[in-house]
């Protein structure tokens, strides 16, 4: 029963001093689900991911993975930050390999996986470049390759495409969906872009302003591949937009 869900968030509360950010939030995420969370700026979306990934201590409540408290040494979590944090002193390939080395995989496996994922995101030709030599979208792809390479059980993404132009965003969104379906992982994807949430998600959580609660939970069963001009797509997008009008 406890393991029915991949991620369980029970009565999560987070304060920074007097500032109550997350106010008694509870929800669950199923295995292989693609969950999008939308919410106004400053409502605590990043704070939530940081709590889940143990970068922050939580004030009250609990976050479980496979029914157990999160343990980074045991649970395989990948986190793609808002700023794509590549190690500037490592080449793109070394960045992708970094996590695999930490996890002490055999050398052959490391090569194989990084080859595969570099190819997947189209960076094979740039594998020996340093991050500073690449554009924002390439860095974002490198971050995605790095995250997928560790074959995470849970993949956290914090507004990863917020700073990219539309064309690139579409491309990377499709790439992400393809990887997600091929590799099979539970994704929690934060965005403030409603269209993006409707395009990607299997379910959308809408958050309120601080102190933050869950305002609505919207299942999204639109068939894939999705078309942003499809009437059903537009209807769902409008439904979500309606919900956040009062932010």
């Amino acid at each position, binding site marked *: 029963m406890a393991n029915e869900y991949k991620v369980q968030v029970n009565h999560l509360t987070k304060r920074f001093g007097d500032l109550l950010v997350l106010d008694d939030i509870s929800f669950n995420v199923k295995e292989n689900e693609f969950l999008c969370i939308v919410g106004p700026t400053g409502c605590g979306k990043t704070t939530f991911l940081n709590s889940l990934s143990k970068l922050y201590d939580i004030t009250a409540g609990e976050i479980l993975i496979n029914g157990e408290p999160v343990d980074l040494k045991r649970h395989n979590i990948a986190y793609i930050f808002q700023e794509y944090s590549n190690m500037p002193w490592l080449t793109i390939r070394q960045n992708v390999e970094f996590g695999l080395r930490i996890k002490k995989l055999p050398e052959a496996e490391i090569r194989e996986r990084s080859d595969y994922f570099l190819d997947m995101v189209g960076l094979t030709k740039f594998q020996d470049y*340093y991050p500073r030599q690449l554009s924002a979208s390439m860095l974002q792809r490198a971050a995605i390759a790095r995250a997928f390479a*560790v074959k995470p059980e849970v993949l956290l993404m914090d507004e990863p495409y917020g700073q990219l132009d539309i064309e690139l965003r579409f491309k990377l969104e499709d790439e992400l969906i393809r990887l997600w379906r091929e590799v099979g992982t539970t994704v929690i994807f934060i965005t403030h872009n409603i269209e993006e949430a409707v395009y990607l998600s299997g379910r959308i959580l809408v958050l309120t302003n601080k102190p933050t609660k869950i305002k609505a939970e919207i299942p999204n069963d639109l068939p894939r591949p999705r078309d942003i001009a499809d009437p059903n797509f537009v209807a769902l997008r409008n439904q979500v937009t309606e919900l956040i009008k009062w932010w």
Partner: protein
Amino acid sequence: MKKKKLNITRAAVGALAILCFLCLWFWATREGTPLGRLMPNPAQVFLRLVETTHTKVGPLTIWGHMLNSLRRVLVGFCIASGSGILLGLAMGWNRTIEALLRPIFELLRPIPPLAWISLAIVWFGLGEGGKYFIIFVSGFSNVTINVYTGAKAVDPELIGAAKMLGCSDRRIFTSIVIPSSVPYIFTGLQIAISSSWAAVVAAEMVRSTNGIGWMITAGQGIGDMEQIMVGIIVIGVVGFLLSTFMRGVESKLCAWSRVQDS
């Protein structure tokens, strides 16, 4: 291609500037001027410099003096670098060490190397120890403060990303904190090698019988202006070569932090 051209232009401008300076020097020290009576002209200094490469000044030729000075500077500099890097990283990484040592460090930092001479003699005697110490003091705080800044400036997201992958604290230190501090370490070393070399005159004021600094001090003692000028020029040129060398090492090891510029 474009870059090469730029470099050549820059070198040409530099050479021209030096040439102008030499002309000015010639002109200022020409026959009959007050300055000319006190100071040799560039040609005299140059001839003297050539002479010192095969004729001894005091106990040694210029090469011998240079090697002695270089040895002192390198010993002092290496000790300063090693301990500065350790202290800087430790203060940047560990809050307790930072709280404990930073105030002491900040108090000692503004004291100029010259001020330490008497203490250096008392602590380390008139031999080489005192000289090493003076040079150490002139490099140490430069290295420490830069490394400390670097260790503090590590991108917290990189540390977060490493934690996420299950990195231990030790691994974070070796795989994230140290590499991202490398450019700062080199800035520190660069400044330190220059100031260490510049301190060689002060260090060799502590009762020495050789070294470029000694040549200058001894030249002053016997009123030999040419010898002083030769010493000054050698200090300038060697200092320039040392910092050029350090910059070369840096651009090799920190390619990643500069690739944007190229």
